[in-house]
Every structure is written in C-alpha cells, then in structure tokens.
C-alpha cells in the first residue's frame, strides 16, 4: 500500500480518447460457453477504497461474473456472460469513476519470471521442511555420539534422514542444478557449480555411509545449505520482480487508440502502430496525441511538459507541429500525420532510452564479481584436498573423497549468497516504509558510489503547478471576478488563478477561445481573461523575462495583470544545500527556457545549470560527466528525462513522473518533498558498508573453517554449526540496518 493510501484521493486522469476508443476487440478472450474475459492494467488505484469502488461498480452489473482488482500489480480481471461487445460498456463504467484502463494480453505478458519466483518459493518451502526435520534427527544422532546410541538406532535415524533429504535435494536443488548445467554447457563456471557439486556429492556420500552403517552423514548440511541459499535467491528474485512489474506499465503510454478520419468521412479507431504518414487524425480536447503531425484545423494549447519539461502549455494553431505523447488542451484538433509509430519523437525517446540502458547493463553486481573469483578457488581447493589425502596422505579414495566433500560443503557460499540479498531486502523494506520504491536490484550499490547529483527542474525541483505571485497592488474585486471566470477552464494558469481565490463562485456562460482566453458577456460589456493580445494590451517586448501571465480586461477599467511563478518543492533548497555540504556536485539540466532555469538555479544556489536541453543533450551531458569519471545520480520526472535517467549511473524519479520515466528510473519516491533523495543516498551508503562487512564475515569464517576441513577434522556437527553460525551472523548484521537511526538523527 502506498504511504499516502489512507488519505489519497482518486486522481481523475483526463478522459482517454472518448468512450470506446480502446481497440478492445483483440484483447477479449473466450472464457467458456457464452462468457468472455478481459484483463486491464488500471492507472490511479492507490488503496483498498479504489479497489472497492471498481469492484462494486462492476459487481452491480448483473452479467458480470467476476471482477477482481489486484492491488499489488494494479490489474483488473474481468469476466462476464454474454456478447463480447459488452466489454466496451463495462470498461467505460470504470473510466467514468476516474481510472484509466489499458487492456493487455495476459498470455503475451506470460509471467515467466513470476512463475520462476513461485517455483523458488516452493523449493524454499520444501527445503525448509526437510532442513527442520533432518536437523531434528541429526541433533539426536549427535547427542547419541556422547550417550552411547546404539548403531541400529543411528542407522534408523540416518535412513529416515535419507528418506527426507534425498527427494528434497532433488526437488529444491533444481534451480541450482539447472543454472550450473547451463554454465557448464557454455564452458563457464558460476557460483551454482560448487553449490550443486557440494549438495549432490554430500547427498551421495552420505547415502553411501548410511548403507555402510557409518557414523557420519551430511544430510543435514546438504539441505540446510540449500535452504539458506534459496532464501537468498528468493529475496534477490523478488527485488528484480518488483522492477519488472513497474516496467509493464510502460505499455500504458502507447495503448490509447488514435481516431483516424477516412477519405469517406468515416471515423475509425486505430492502434498507433497502424497509423501511417498522410492520414488525417482527430484529437479531442484533453486527449493524449498519438502521432506526430501538423495541424490542419482547429486551435488549442498543447501541454508538452512530458516531452520538453516546460511548465506552460504552448498555444498552437493551423500549420503548427504537434508531437506524439503530448496532451491536447481545450480545443479539438485535426492533424495531418507526418510520423507515427517508430518515427515519432516518443519512439525516438524510447530508442535513446534502450540504448542508454544497454550501456548501463554492463554494470556487474558486486556479488557476481566475487562469485567469478570464488568458484575456481573452491573447486581447486576441494580437488587439491582429495588428491592430497589420496596420493600423499595415504588414505583410500573413499575417505579422501569424504574429506573433500566436507571442504566443498564448508566453503559453500552460504553466507556469501546471503550477504547481499539480506542487506538489500532490509534496505528495500526500510526505504519502502518511507515511500521510496527501489526498482533495480543493483541500485543500492550504484547509489553508494554517487559523487554528482543532476536535477531536472520542472516537476522535480518544482512542484509542476504554477502559483499566482501575490501583488499587493492588485484590486481584490478584480481578482475575485477573474478567479470566478477562471474556474470555468481547465487551462493550468486559469486553474492556479481559481485556486488562489478558493471561495470565488464559478461563473456561468463562459466561452473559451482555445489558445487565447476566456470571455463572458455581461450587461455592462464583455469580461475577458487570457493572453495579452486577447485583452487588447500592447505587446511589451521581451515577454520571457516576465514569466507566465494572465491579463484580465473589464469594461471601463484598465486591464489587470496576474503573474505566475513555479513553486519550488518545500525543501528543495535545503536538500540541495545538504547535498553540497556532503561534498556532492549539484547540477541542473532543464528543457525549459534559460530565464526560468536561471531564476530557479539562483534561488537554490546551484552554480552549474543548462537550459533548453533536448533529451539527447541531457544524455550527452551525462556522458560528458561519466567520461570525467563522475558517478552521476540523475533525478528527473519528465518524459524528456527518461533517456537521461537510463543513461545516468543511477536515477531517481518522483512518483508523479511520467510512466516511462518511472520505468527507466532505478528508484521512485513519493510525496511532495525532496528529502527522500537524501534518505536514499544515506541508506545506500549504509547498506554498502554492511555488504562489505558481511563479505568480511563470510571470508573470515572461511579462513578458520577451511583449514579444519582440509585437515579432515570437520564432522557433520562442526559443518552444521559453522554454516548456520555464519549465515545467522550475516543476517544479524544486515538487520542492524533496520534499526539504524534515520538520517536526521545521525547528523546530530
């Protein structure tokens, strides 16, 4: 659940492409005789309340047989009796509640990895069951060594152990065996090779001992080893699973259909990938534009903030170009398509992102780097022990093999396999409680190395919305009148103005002229609210420096000007100062106009800033920094930041960000404050220290245990104690992170 869950209100997304604009047809499946099923991803579900609203609305329909929202994955499974055409109407019911629905094909998203996660959990359950039971039996055998247990009773215990352990090893070890086999087939070696060897050999040798009536069996070591390793593996996999889940929402941006006007005047809804240049596309007010094009009819304003980071919508008219992914304002538009699908700016951004991500994928996690060194050393050691005892020590090959197996079991990277996942799971949980969702498994490691922080401006340092600049000279009555007019519009500036005077009544009969302003006829004459030109005020030269503004004209009175400014996030200046105090370099990269960026940079005390940056420019700047040996943390939210987020060493995104940006960011934070950036960095540093301590613990234990094992002194009791002891020490060390004081207390 999101931390703001209890209080969160459903955010009504702009109505998507009008009713029935989704091409639902291909997604509807037969779910039995006369029944159909459909799966959606739902945008805007935050808490149980949203789940209940959707399920009740759908459940009230008599023909709906199943409607279930999964809050964790934000998916809706819908099933109804009757014709497939009903799907449209049912989807519209949910859209009306203010949620955006995107249909998807569950078969195409066949969660191979999710199945794998479940398989790991099953293996873990089986291994845990076996470990607990075999350990009980083993404890009695060990006690029997000191209390004269009869050979027959010991053999019985060993046989029971074998009966539990061998099937469990074969079942629960499969993930390791499969991975080891793949590595061996490719003539490589990985951590799973020594694990598989140790477990299988320990099982086989113990069975041999049991049949021969020997005193020592390693069944407990084999299954506990598997259990601990599976715990680590499962934690690791779940962290990755969360990242992938966030990734599937990427589809949401592309899935809305495009309304195409045919040569015969008929309207058809087409998926964006079927739109070709030259087609005529209709865009309703408030709709997200599905293709790049040139306007042939209509006027409106376009919210380009996702693409360029500009806070203010652009007025557009006939002949102007528009880009896919931007949001249309208050007027309907007709455009001639110049680029669609793979040719659009949106697709270009996605390509930049993919390229950047490929570069970053080369980062090798610390645990993997350790594993590369570890496997050959362990193999060599076990082999040397075997050969040493057999050829030089004068033992027969069976006892020599037993000693070599003890070496393999003891050196098995049990604690090593837990060292990183345990810390990551606890750090992830700690951050999650503060509204920070870690999406990438290696994000913590990379965050700990950061020495430069690059911020985007709009929506990251600022709150995105504009606020009215208070001017004591403004006539209160005029402000009130203007606000009542503004209440009738969805334009961002009008909304900010209306918010500034919350008690002003919303005026009726307001006419909106897209891209120009609002007008209302009264008995005394016309009231006008809008651009400078709309209110008949002479153009005053450089308008950039004055910032966004609205003018208000009344009959028989001089026009009044309302200025607006971007509001910085509450703690933006404090966070920037704190970062600089910690010795991190801070930079500002924005797609907005230079004057605005300079003003924000000055208020925050950021000396290095660049304005008017395209997505490619941002990537280039990051590459420059990387070439200087800088490890950059990119914090951004816009679609224009998505490639930069993917290109940076590590990246953060506010939860208000565009889907694509959240997808490419390594972590997402919630709330109106920037403090999570500091908290994330502090936790990452702490986690990095703990991981290094854990490795030191694991290696230190090996330094003591290996000589004992090589000397042939490691009985199953010693092996079990050493292995469990080191694993528990590593987990206990990781747990210190959960109890560590938060960043604020640390500074005092």
């Amino acid at each position, binding site marked *: 659940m999101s931390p703001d869950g209890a209080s969160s209100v459903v955010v009504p997304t702009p109505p998507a492409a009008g009713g029935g604009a989704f091409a639902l047809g291909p997604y509807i499946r037969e779910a039995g005789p006369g029944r159909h099923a459909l799966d959606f991803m739902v945008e805007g579900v935050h808490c149980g309340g949203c789940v209940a609203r959707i399920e009740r609305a759908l459940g009230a329909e008599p023909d709906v047989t199943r409607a279930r929202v999964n809050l964790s994955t934000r998916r809706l499974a819908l099933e109804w009796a009757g014709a497939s055409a009903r799907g449209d109407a049912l989807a519209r019911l949910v859209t009306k509640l203010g949620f955006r629905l995107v249909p998807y094909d569950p078969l195409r998203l066949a969660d191979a990895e999710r199945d794998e996660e479940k398989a790991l*959990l099953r293996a873990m359950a089986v291994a845990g069951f076996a470990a607990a039971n075999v350990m009980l039996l083993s404890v009695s055998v060990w006690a029997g060594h000191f209390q004269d247990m009869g050979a027959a009773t010991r053999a019985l215990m060993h046989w029971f152990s074998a009966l539990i352990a061998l099937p469990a090893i074969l079942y629960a070890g499969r993930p390791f065996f499969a991975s080891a086999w793949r590595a061996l087939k490719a003539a490589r070696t990985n951590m799973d090779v020594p694990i598989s060897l140790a477990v299988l050999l320990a099982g086989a040798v113990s069975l041999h001992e049991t049949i021969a009536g020997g005193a020592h069996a390693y069944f407990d070591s084999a299954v506990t080893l598997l259990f601990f390793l599976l715990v680590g593996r499962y934690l690791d996999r779940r962290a990755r699973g969360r990242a992938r889940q966030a990734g599937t929402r990427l589809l949401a941006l592309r899935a809305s259909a495009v309304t195409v006007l045919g040569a015969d005047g008929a309207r058809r809804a087409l998926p964006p990938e079927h739109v070709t240049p030259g087609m005529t596309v209709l865009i309703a007010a408030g709709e997200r534009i599905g293709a790049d094009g040139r306007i042939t009819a209509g006027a409106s304003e376009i919210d380009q903030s996702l693409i360029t980071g500009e806070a203010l919508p652009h007025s557009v008219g006939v002949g102007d170009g528009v880009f896919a992914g931007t949001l249309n304002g208050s007027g309907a538009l007709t455009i001639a398509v110049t680029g669609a699908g793979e040719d659009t700016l949106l697709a270009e951004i996605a390509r930049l992102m993919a390229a950047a991500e490929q570069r970053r994928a080369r980062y090798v996690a610390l645990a993997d780097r350790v594993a590369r060194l570890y496997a050959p050393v362990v193999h060599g050691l076990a082999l040397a022990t075997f050969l040493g005892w057999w050829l030089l020590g004068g033992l027969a090959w069976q006892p020599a093999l037993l000693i070599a197996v003890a070496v393999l079991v003891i050196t098995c990277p049990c604690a090593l396999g837990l060292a990183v996942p345990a810390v990551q799971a606890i750090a992830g949980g700690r951050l999650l409680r503060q509204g920070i969702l870690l999406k990438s498994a290696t994000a913590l490691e990379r965050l700990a190395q950061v020495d430069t922080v690059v911020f985007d401006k709009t929506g990251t340092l600022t709150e995105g919305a504009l606020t009215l600049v208070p001017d004591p000279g403004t006539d209160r009555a005029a402000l009130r009148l203007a606000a009542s007019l503004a209440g009738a519009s969805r334009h961002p500036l009008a909304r900010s103005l209306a918010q500034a005077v919350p008690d002003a009544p919303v005026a009726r009969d307001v006419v909106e002229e897209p891209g120009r302003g609002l007008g209302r006829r009264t008995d005394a004459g016309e009231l006008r609210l809008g651009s400078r030109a709309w209110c008949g005020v002479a153009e005053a030269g450089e308008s950039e420096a004055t910032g966004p503004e609205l003018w208000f004209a009344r009959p028989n009175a001089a026009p009044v000007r309302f200025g607006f400014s971007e509001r910085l996030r509450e703690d933006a200046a404090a966070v920037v100062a704190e970062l600089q105090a910690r010795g991190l370099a801070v930079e500002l990269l924005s797609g907005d106009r230079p004057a605005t960026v300079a003003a924000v940079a000055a208020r925050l005390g950021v000396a290095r800033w660049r304005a008017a940056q395209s997505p490619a420019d941002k990537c280039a700047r990051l590459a420059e920094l990387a070439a200087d040996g800088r490890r950059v943390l990119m914090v951004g939210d816009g679609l224009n930041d998505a490639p930069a987020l993917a290109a940076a060493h590590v990246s953060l995104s506010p939860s208000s960000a565009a889907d694509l940006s959240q997808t490419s960011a390594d972590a997402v934070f919630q709330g109106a404050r920037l403090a999570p950036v500091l908290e994330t960095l502090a936790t990452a540093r702490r986690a990095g220290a703990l991981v290094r301590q854990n490795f030191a613990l694991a290696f230190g234990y090996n330094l003591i245990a290996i000589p004992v094992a090589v000397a042939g002194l490691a009985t199953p009791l010693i092996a079990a104690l050493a292995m469990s002891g080191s694993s528990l020490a590593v987990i206990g060390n990781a747990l210190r992170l959960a109890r560590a004081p938060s960043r604020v207390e640390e500074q005092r």
Partner: protein
Amino acid sequence: MDVLVYLIPIAIFLGAVGLGAFLWALKSGQFDDMDGAAERILHDDDEKP
C-alpha cells in the same frame, strides 16, 4: 525405543501436511495480492446498494 519407528514417521507426516497446505495456498493464489488482501477485510460487502 521401538516406539521411534512409529513416532518419527507420524511427526514427519504431520509436518508434510503443513507443507502441503502451504503449497496448496501458494498454488491457489492466496499470495498473489498481499497488499489487496490486507485492505479487503475493511470492505463492507454486505452494504446494500
């Protein structure tokens, strides 16, 4: 100590029943939506619309 011959299998069998119950719960989707399950208890399903 002959009783061990019965007691150990019984203990293991009881443990296996627990394991089976967990695997069944996993398979039947009881763990698919951990966040949602926590909230569903608060819904008033008996509320007549």
